[in-house]
């Protein structure tokens, strides 16, 4: 029977004959280098601990921000209100009540818009008419202190731009009702909530009627008169849709707009 040395000769021959193919070790090493590390990181306890602590810290941070947000908002509102009060003392602008028309109907409609909204179109607006002025109480009170101080500048700009669109719509109402309607739709989609709804609704009735859409025009006319019975546009709107599609016939005494 063979002993350990003889056995080792055979086993050594086996080891030498059964070696990995050349290049395999380097290929596996490359695969190991390519293997992403994050998986082992995720599995490690330290990574879990770090993640947990980070989550707790993030939650605390969010809580602090949540607590501080309302305070910042209140303080900002206070300072803006104070500015508004100062401005009020300097320029106590008031809006005349619109319960009764104070401008003759023959006057240019957009001049009326400018007057009531206190926004001269050719220069920087001073005090916009806030949407809350639609409230009868606000109308009677007439104060035009900004009720949305944060968006004050934005509302000024939007009101001026919106009224510009309405002026263009009114100008093209007689010559090109379709263009007027397009301008009104553009106004509605862009500046629909900037405070000239009464003018927009009136011009829309006129444009709809001028386009010959009598049934829709009459519907809108009724809605307008119900809602803005005391409007300076009421008489003008009342005459709309009395004939199909001709705004001149609907409103023969339409004044030329003053520039």
């Amino acid at each position: 029977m063979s002993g350990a040395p003889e056995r080792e000769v055979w086993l050594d021959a086996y080891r030498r004959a059964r070696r990995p193919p050349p290049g395999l070790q380097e290929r596996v090493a490359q695969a190991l280098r390519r293997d992403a590390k994050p998986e082992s990181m995720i599995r490690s306890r330290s990574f879990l601990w770090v993640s947990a602590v980070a989550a707790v810290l993030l939650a605390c941070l969010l809580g602090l921000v949540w607590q501080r947000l309302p305070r910042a908002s209140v303080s900002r509102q206070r300072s803006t209100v104070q500015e508004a009060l100062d401005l009020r003392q300097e320029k106590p602008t008031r809006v005349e009540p619109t319960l009764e028309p104070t401008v003759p109907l023959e006057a240019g409609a957009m001049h009326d818009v400018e007057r009531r909204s206190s926004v001269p179109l050719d220069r920087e607006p001073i005090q916009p008419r806030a949407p809350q002025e639609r409230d009868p109480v606000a109308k009677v009170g007439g104060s035009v202190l900004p009720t949305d101080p944060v968006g004050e500048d934005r509302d000024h700009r939007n009101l001026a731009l919106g009224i510009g669109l309405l002026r263009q719509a009114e100008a093209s109402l007689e010559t090109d009702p379709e263009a007027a309607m397009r301008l009104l739709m553009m106004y509605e989609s862009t500046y629909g909530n900037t405070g000239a709804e009464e003018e927009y609704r009136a011009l829309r009735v006129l444009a709809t009627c001028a386009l010959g859409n009598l049934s829709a025009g009459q519907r809108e006319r009724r809605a307008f008169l119900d809602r803005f019975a005391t409007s300076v546009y009421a008489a003008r709107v009342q005459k709309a849709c009395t004939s199909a599609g001709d705004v001149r016939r609907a409103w023969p005494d339409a004044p030329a707009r003053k520039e």
Partner: protein
Amino acid sequence: MTPANPSGAFEEIFRAHFDYVWRLSRRMVGEASADDVTQESFLIAKRRFDSFDGRAPRAWLHAIVRHVAWNHQRGHARRLHRVAQTDPPSPHMSADDAVQLEWAARHVEYFLDKLAVSQREAFVLGDIEGLTAQEIAAIQGVPIRTVYSRLRLARHAFDRYIGRLGARAGRRP
């Protein structure tokens, strides 16, 4: 025990035991799949390296290779493929060195295939791969005495096999 430099420590294990892992893989899944199993085993070893206690790296690698090989072998088709690729031993080869080594290796494999599974594993791990009896006991889940017993029986059988072979063919590696 966690290594101070995990990346360097793993690199060291990779270099030192690459041949061992490949031979294990080859014995478990055959030559055709040995490369894949070796690579997969080292990938898993790298990912689990942070849980390795630093002791008995060969036993640790053996467990990984066995797991990978087991997954690899689950397909019956693969098993049939491996069997089909196993050539029968051909003792009468030419005498140049490479062929001589291959001749000896095939005889060793032929002998191993005839051996009982538990003895074969103990013999391969202990006498071919150089694991200690303690490591083999940990791998096989048996007392050290049992490992010694299996090694003794396997060595005795192997010695008889190569003795008969030498007497018949008059050759040795």
